[in-house]
């Protein structure tokens, strides 16, 4: 993936997350496109690059939200590293397996974010955010991930047909 395509992807995430996904939010929950970008890029670069790109993606997401700068940069950097290290072992094109992996990544990033939030902002019951935000977000992101990750295959299949 070239830097230009990464930039286009990041811009698409910014616009998607801030504007385009609003009509399809369910109870205020939208798929996390930034996380999907990190997972997608991490499979195509070295773990070092994935860490840095994850950090950059997270930093951009932090700047576009009320989160303290560094919250998502931390989780996305770590997620990028893990995804890049495990990409060879965990690569799959099966939709159900993809769903499970993205769900696990998103839920893991959410739980880590919650931990950091509790560390910096004090006591909040973790059960409510887990049920209301982390798990629904992980499920929605995983579903969106399955669709987005299968787009190149669908395009290739259509090209073969044409």
């Amino acid at each position, binding site marked *: 993936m070239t830097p230009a395509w990464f930039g286009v992807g990041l*811009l698409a995430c*910014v*616009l998607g*997350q*801030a*504007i385009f996904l*609003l009509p399809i939010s369910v109870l*205020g*929950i*939208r798929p*996390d496109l*930034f996380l999907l970008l990190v997972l997608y890029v991490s499979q195509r670069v070295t*773990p*070092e690059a994935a*860490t*840095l790109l*994850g*950090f950059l993606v*997270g*930093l*951009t*997401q*932090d*700047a*576009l*939200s*009320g*989160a*303290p*700068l*560094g*919250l*998502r*940069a*931390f989780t996305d*950097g*770590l997620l990028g*590293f893990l995804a890049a290290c495990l990409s060879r072992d965990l690569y799959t094109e099966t939709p159900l397996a993809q769903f499970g992996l993205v769900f696990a990544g998103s839920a893991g990033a959410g739980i880590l*974010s919650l931990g*950091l*939030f509790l560390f*910096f*902002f004090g006591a*909040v019951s973790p059960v*409510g*955010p887990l049920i*209301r*935000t982390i798990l629904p*977000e992980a499920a929605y992101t995983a579903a969106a991930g399955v669709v987005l990750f299968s787009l190149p295959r669908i395009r290739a299949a259509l090209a073969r047909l044409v």
Partner: protein
Amino acid sequence: MVGALLRLLIRYRRTVVLAGTLVCAFLLMTLQVRHESSVVSVTRQVLLFAVSPFIRLTSGILHGTGSVWSDYVDLRDLRQENLRLRGEVGLLKRRIQQLEDQALETQRLQRLLGFRETWPAEFLSARVVGKDATNWFRTILLDRGSPDGVRRNMPVVTADGLVGRVLEVTPTISRVQLLTDPVSSVGGLVQRTRVTGIVSGNLGAGARVRYLPLLADVVPGDEVVTSGMGGVFPKGIPVGRITAVERKSGALFAEAVLSPAADLGRLEEVMILKGTEPHQGFETGSQR
């Protein structure tokens, strides 16, 4: 020595990059949360400013496209009506629809104007161009920036009540922290009994009034307005209505669940209150 260190760094570069990145992210958070560092603030503003033209442009295009599309849909409907009712009835229907739209717009503007007359302060209307990039925090982006006179901590309202406060300002765009944001806090006053509390967001779900005296006379249905304490929000702006009161045994304070007065999920246009420093005419707010 230096050569050996470099070799070591190269050998363990993966660990070094990961550790460096995580430490850097953690430091950024610490600097912002514990010290309100200007470095972090500037970094945020630069990043927000960098993407703001794209957000404004896209939002503008969507807004325009929406109008064109609704016009197109109306026109198609009109043609069908024309065919069925020999033209004239369809034209009249379209005219009625336009008038209804105008009436709704007038009604909305009148409510805004009414609110504006209630508060003798300078108002600046703004359009919502984007929302928070996470599902955790509750912020919105407005199409007004520092050249319009927007400054940090200015209150933001709708005709129904309080929305939040301006958190960050760039030349082209501003970010507003909604009162339902988990790190937002607003001084609140129960209008009926004058009991004070702190209205704060609840991570992922609505808002609560915290630090209410345990035996305070607060019941579901009570209206909450801003208390004016803290110096950010003027006194008397409607904040919301209490829907439930929780008094846990052993707790020092009671808490209440609050339903915000303004529909924070469907914000399209808001007003920024300019010139809200103390003693600028907001004392009248307590008489409301």
